[in-house]
């Protein structure tokens, strides 16, 4: 049979990391348990809820549906790294101002997903915003406040530029 562990080299939030991982470990277990990056949450572990959303090579993906070994050679960004860059500081502030989170469980995944929409830097209708987060569940807010926060962020950004 094939081996149970494998060495991987990858970039996580800008740092180059080399680790030996269990080949069946998924990416979010690796980030949480091996690297202590607990911002990425695990809800359903089968692709439905979006709490585990992270970026791999600049695109938002389900962290629970990718094996850590598949990230070998890749560039992973989590909510910790994205927050540090300040790229979505305005969105985060608007989330707080508009009460777009209650328990906060869905929030890191929401923000990782929304950051991809904001990168397009174009006007999105409320319907487009809802469509973009259709794969992210929130059990608390009813989504309305989240859409408000995104709408404000987009219009402020377009107004400033």
């Amino acid at each position, binding site marked *: 049979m094939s081996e149970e562990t494998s060495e991987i080299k990858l970039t996580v939030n800008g740092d180059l990391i080399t680790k030996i991982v269990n080949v069946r470990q998924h990416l979010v277990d690796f980030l949480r348990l091996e690297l202590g990056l607990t911002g990425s949450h695990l809800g359903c572990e089968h*692709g439905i809820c*979006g709490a585990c959303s992270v970026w791999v090579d600049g695109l938002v*993906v*389900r962290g629970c*549906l990718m*094996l850590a*070994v*598949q990230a070998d050679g890749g560039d992973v960004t989590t909510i910790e790294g994205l927050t540090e860059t300040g790229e979505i500081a305005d969105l985060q502030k608007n989330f707080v101002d508009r009460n777009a989170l209650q328990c906060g469980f869905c929030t890191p995944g929401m923000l990782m997903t929304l950051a991809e929409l904001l990168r397009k830097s174009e006007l999105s209708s409320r319907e487009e915003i809802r469509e973009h987060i*259709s*794969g992210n569940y929130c059990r608390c807010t009813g989504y309305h406040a989240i859409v408000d926060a995104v709408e404000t962020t987009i219009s402020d950004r377009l107004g400033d530029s």
Partner: protein
Amino acid sequence: MLLNEYGEDGQILAGGQSLMPTLNMRLSNPQLLIDINHLHELNSITLDDNIVRIGALARHSELALSPIIDMYLPLIADAIPHVAHIAVRNRGTFGGSVALADPAAELPACVLALGGTVVLQSVKGIRKVKADDYFLGLYETERKPNELLIEVQIPVQDLTGLWAFVELSQRKGDYAIAGLAFIGTSEKQFIKTAKLVYFGSEIKPTLAKKTMAILINTRWDDNTRKLIAETLGRDLDPMTNLQGSAKMKLHLQKVLTNRAIDLALKREKPSR
């Protein structure tokens, strides 16, 4: 090749958007996972002599952004937004969807409606299977366990013709409860030819041959609508499942058929 050695105990891992959930839930336990994500030659979308060649590893989001798909396969361009959500589309692959043949999946229905050909490779060589002979049953296809799906070849759409893609799902991005892909031709709102492929309700993407026969050389009027509603039940055999009863799904497919043909006829190019 590993696939040959391990047969059904080896599983190909493409986008993982269908396979990984079953592994996480311990619903499947292959002895060996064969990750094909490094086969970069399999992720291109090219136009070659009026055939669009979609590599097995082309991601759903790459199809969404592809000018070739947008220009030459508008049916698929219309279907992609219905396939899951952004994060799933960023990983899930065209080949994975056609290999899995989920009965509620959009892309297998498009491949059948567009007369595509599935290209399979094993240690013995390459063989090509027409979509008509490829989808056999519930998650059952002509692909053997030792074969890798490498590409799907689809003739460019008749751009003077009609098309429509419609579906109903509980929420945007969910698997379809009912849906269909329509391809046809018309002249002055008179339907000349029609191809209807249903998904979601059936065990596999299904051609509605009796209903298609009625649509040949007809005017799309109340009488035709009525005839179609009567005939569709003889073409389809909907499954009752968590998404709804067979009766409800047949009803939805009738409603969607009307919507699809209405939408398609709006696309008729003015004749010269």
